[in-house]
């Protein structure tokens, strides 16, 4: 799974490459398309995140539960 950070990093790279010299047009278009996809995914992720305070509980079998604290 691509993390938010990986998306940001990829976007930086794409912007950098597009801003550089000697990118051929087909490559530029592919980069642009990838950039747009990453931007959209990152914005979606940002919109979906929510603030919560929870607590980690370890069950006897070693599995974990996260329960709301308040």
């Amino acid at each position, binding site marked *: 799974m691509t*993390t*938010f*950070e990986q998306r*940001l990093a990829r*976007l*930086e790279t*794409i*912007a950098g490459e*597009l*801003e550089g010299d000697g*990118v051929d*047009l087909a490559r*530029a*278009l592919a*980069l*642009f398309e990838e*950039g*747009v996809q990453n*931007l959209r995914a*990152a*914005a979606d*992720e*940002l919109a979906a*995140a*929510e*603030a*919560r*305070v*929870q*607590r*980690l509980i*370890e069950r006897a079998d*070693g599995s*974990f539960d*996260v329960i709301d*604290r308040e």
Partner: protein
Amino acid sequence: MQRHEQYGPQEELPLSEFIDGVPGETARSAVAVGTLNAAAKDIIEGAFIPLWVRGEINDFKAHRNGHWYFCLRDSRAQVRCVVWSSDQRRFPAPPDDGMQVAAFGRLTVYAARGEMQFTITRIEAEGDGLRRKALEITRARLEKDGLLASERKRPLPRFPRVIAVVTSPEGAALHDIVAVMRRRSANVRLVVVPAAVQGDTAPEELCYALDQVNRWGGADLAIVARGGGSREDLWAFNNERVARAVAACGVPTISAVGHEIDLSICDLVADHRAPTPSAAAETATSSRAELETHLRKLSLRVSGAARALIRDRADTLRHLSRDVAGAVEGQISTQRATLQSVAGRLNALSPVATLARGYAIARAEDGGTLSSIDAFRDGQHFDLVVRDGTVPARVDGASRPSARAGA
């Protein structure tokens, strides 16, 4: 040497010892050595409540059996001392010979050997010497293993979604972190992983909590936090095992222990050191607005760059086509010039030009040129083509010129 000494096998006193009055009063009523020591033990141990004694550490030995033995002495006297291994975890480090200390313990008698010893449970070294020593030792060991190297520091995630907070669930640290997160409306899930942050069990609980963070695997950042407190309160965060657990954490770590001035071993090992728990929360959670701005900037960069690139390519194309057109045009005019010169030369060869100079062409009725006397027959009709027209003509006796003749 044994941890819990007994009185020794308590012999029944022989009846004879009572017959002659007070035991030990006469040779006949002499008491056994064990009896003497047992009595001494009773008296001495009963006479002293646990107390602090000051002196200099001397002849320190960490025995194979795990206990520490040494003497505490001053200019006038010395006393044998022991620290049982089970009491040693309260000690930041073993004391060194020559250290001036105050030691807390109780005076005991080791009856089997007739020795008095001071059984120590705490030591305060002058100038906090034990803690300083412990810090140096721990730091050196971690350094040797490369755990303090700056290359080890991992960058913190820009947008962590799940932050594990290893701390006391009731502590001020957690309260501060939650408050900051609320204020910044950071869209983040805090998952508290409870651990005692002070007291004897704190190191173990902190290690366990950090291990839970790893085994759970659901966080993308971990904060190890504790509010301010005394040096002793914060001591668990200088524990080597805790430090190693922080270093072994699978996700980037922020250490926030005490206040600004308190620098712990955990701070040195963590990927990032925050001066306070609140500061840790600030560092960990960029606000949502910040992230949105960042995304917008990236978006502008990508689309701007793409647009600039396309404009650049279009310009190149335009220049190129202009160049091509110029080149073609040049080619054409060169060829036109060539054509003109060729045309001039062709013109010079043209029969029309010859006619212009006053020559005439005889042409047969079928259009063929009659250029030899042999082509003419007497009475034959033909055309005579001159500069400005055609004259019908007829052969009236053709003859080969005998000498030289005109046409």
